[in-house]
């Protein structure tokens, strides 16, 4: 039986802004594609390179990281750290042969339910166009 492929997106959302934004989208009954699997973290800077790489290794087609807008971080400067870390990580993914568009960082505030829904819409479409992650395919071979 052929299974239709749908992009799997792992989303790491910060507790204070993006997660609340996603919550807002939900309570406002906004529609967005169900591709994202959300993992709540206390701050986007909690996400280290290991977590992102592991997500890709385990078959994620894309990874989304959502944090607070610049200046709004609950921990003052966490999102600045995330921003720099992800910039370097995207380069590393590219060197390895993974399209850096598969790793996306966005700032979404607790009030921006609409932005969250829109971003998910866009991102799911973009990943669908990129197709399945080559790393996920490699992993299936191993298994």
């Amino acid at each position, binding site marked *: 039986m052929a299974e239709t492929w749908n992009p799997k997106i792992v989303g790491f959302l910060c507790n204070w802004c993006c997660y609340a934004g996603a919550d807002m989208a939900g309570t406002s009954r906004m529609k967005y594609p169900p591709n994202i699997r959300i993992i709540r973290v206390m701050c986007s800077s909690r996400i280290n*390179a*290991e977590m992102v*790489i*592991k997500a890709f*290794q385990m078959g994620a087609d894309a990874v989304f990281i959502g944090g607070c807008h*610049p200046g709004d971080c609950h921990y*003052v*400067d966490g999102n*600045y*750290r995330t*921003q*720099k*870390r992800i*910039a*370097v*990580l995207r*380069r*590393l993914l*590219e*060197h*390895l*042969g*993974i*399209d850096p568009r598969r790793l996306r960082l966005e700032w979404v505030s607790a009030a921006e339910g609409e932005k969250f829904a829109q971003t998910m819409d866009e991102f799911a479409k973009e990943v669908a166009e990129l197709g399945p992650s*080559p*790393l996920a395919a*490699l992993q299936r071979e*191993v298994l």
Partner: protein
Amino acid sequence: MEQELKAHLKKLMASGDVAGIIALKSERGMAKPYLFADASELECLCLTPKYPMASVARLLLDEDGAARFAIVCRGCDERALRELAKRHQVDLDRLVIVGIPCDEEMARECACPEPFPSVVAVGTKLEQWEAEDIGAAYRAMELDEKLAFWKHQLEKCNKCYGCRNACPMCFCKDCELENALWVKHGRLPPEFPIYHMIRAFHLAGKCIACGECQRACPSDIPLMVLNTLLREDMEELFGYVSGTGADAENPLYTKEEMQ
């Protein structure tokens, strides 16, 4: 150069300024890192092969609370000491750096960005030096070619941890590469690609391009390609070149917004 260096070190020792000299000692045709505490021993001092002297200094300074040491340093050793000092792993006030340059053959072998220290105590540094661009061929590859290339290369890994152990910048007491959450225990080759990606990422803004990891690798994995590409990225994204400037901080550790 060796004789000249020995004479220089003897003088340094006689001055009483240092408790000992960290350098390589030749013994039964082999070389080992050694702390020369007496001028008479200096006869056995040797300069080759290349050895990550900064790691020796780091461990030694840890042992002894106050003494000052001289250390025979190549360009890469000096860069490593600078980065280690930024992370409070060595105290540069307790080290007297005796700089020696590398010859062209050695510099080429390492594709060294700067095969001489800031102050050359003995010998003459290469006047004209341009390092080989080892990243060029990889930057030109398509994404799927890159992935196939690394898949092939990293499959050769037998997880000996040689790259980490040889690296002068790997000083963490708890290493994420030993954490079973990321790298499964007892699996060969390690799962693609997390093992090598963790190492490459942790060295971003840290790697001083000494090439020790690649030299240590029994499977000839071109690890310096990844490290060099990330060194270039750090410069492009943040203007940061690791191993330079005592005041410049790795932007990945600072709290400032990205420009």
